[in-house]
């Protein structure tokens, strides 16, 4: 079963971190992703640029309407994602719980549909 783990965190917290701490966090996250990949549980993962770089796209009356900013303004922002392939939700929760950002942010775990959008 594939799950998309959406990593939400307050960018403020990251920005306030001393450089050394931020690098350590990034190293820890990357090492964890390497480990998941070796176990065959990681399909893709990436951190995202800050939310100011976000563009939201809608098509209304046939017109493409891109707007500046994220889909929803919230206290925590989408900071990255992991796409995993594991047995069940308990495994997905275990993996999400060990991701470093879970210690100060939140990880939304969403099961991915196997076929189509219906």
């Amino acid at each position, binding site marked *: 079963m594939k799950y998309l783990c959406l990593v939400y965190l307050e960018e403020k917290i990251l920005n306030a971190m001393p450089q050394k701490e931020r690098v350590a966090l990034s190293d820890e996250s990357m090492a964890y992703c390497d480990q998941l990949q070796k176990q065959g549980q990681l399909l893709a993962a990436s951190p995202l640029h800050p939310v100011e770089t976000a563009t939201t796209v809608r098509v209304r009356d046939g017109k493409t309407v891109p707007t500046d900013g994220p889909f929803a303004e919230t206290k925590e922002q989408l900071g990255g994602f992991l796409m995993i392939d594991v*047995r069940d939700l*308990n495994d997905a929760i275990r993996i999400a719980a060990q991701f470093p950002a879970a210690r100060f942010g939140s990880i939304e775990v969403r099961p991915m549909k196997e076929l189509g959008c219906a």
Partner: protein
Amino acid sequence: MSDKASRPPRETVDAIYRTESRRVLATLIRLLGDFDAAEEALHEAFTAAMEQWPRDGVPANPLAWLVSTGRFKAIDGMRRRARYDASLNELAKHIENTSSDPLEQKDEHIEDDRLRLIFTCCHPALTPEAQIALTLREVCGLTTEEIARAFLTKPATIAQRIVRAKAKIRDARIPYEVPLPSELPGRLDTVLHVVYLVFNEGYSASFGSSLTRADLSGEAIRLGRLLVQLLAEPEVMGLLAMMLLHESRRTARTSESGDLVLLEQQNRSLWNRDHIGEGVRLIERALASRRFGPYTLQAAIAAVHAEAPDTAETDWAQIVALYDLLFRADPSPIVELNRAVAIAMRDGPTKGLELVDKLLARGALANYHLAHAVRADLCRRLGKKADARASYERALVLTTQEPERRFLEKRLKELVDGTVS
């Protein structure tokens, strides 16, 4: 078996339905991998039993027969419907290959299935409301109407909660398993909390005119007994003990007119000694493990009351000591409030009032009616009439329970009239 065979088959099937249907369901969910399919299979298995048992006699192992029949009917049904949905054929084949027929070979998982069902219904990825509804429906076998009546809500609301919970279990793939030992403490907490909420809802209904809803408390105790039997962890025993000890006072805590009777005034000869005895034995087992927690401590406090002939002879020092331990395990303002009451009993109302005032000043319990009721009572005992009156009035504004409202109104009236209770 012989007495079963001599009874009319219809009654035998009904009796087996009452005792075994949840067990059959729990195993069918594992074999079929789906709650709805399992419920349908359960229904078909009992329909088949109604037809066949009168003719062929009750099978030697009715449980295995029902599981086997349900499994067979489900596979058969999938094959028939495969004409319209080819994927069902694959599913039927998968179920046939991955699960064994309990009539043909011993299925060593059967014993764990009820525990699997409980942990799945109480999975932390479901909301507490969904956990409660699903547990009462699937583990206890209550109908959605019965659950709705117990929680004073509409059957459609409960039905929707259950449908959503089952959809989440299926779509997010919540596994049907007992948690790993490393995850057991946290997961067990969720299960115990569900049982505790069900009991509490039955014991001190949060809304409405009836102070106790015995059927819900009875369900919670049944669940507690089942859990102790399946997983004899100290806190499981502690929770069951706590429920039994509170339940033991049920008849004594309301008067014939449905009014609240405080612990102090309760007729202790009405307390259920069997419940108390069972509770005390469970506490002893839990304490001996040295891995006990808040439920065992709350049970131990209830046991001190249960063993005292009246309020005056209650060992308040021991109750305070137990509250100190409880506060370390569960540092909540409610525990502090109860501790303050015990201290008032041990050291007098002045000391108790001091603690309650400090607690209220912190704001944590400002909207909790019992905090104001406690303050009112302490002020009353100290002769501070104006303070007592203000606190009774505050408590009255905040309570949602009819018998409590009547009790507070009576106290307030006595205070104003100058009569002493």
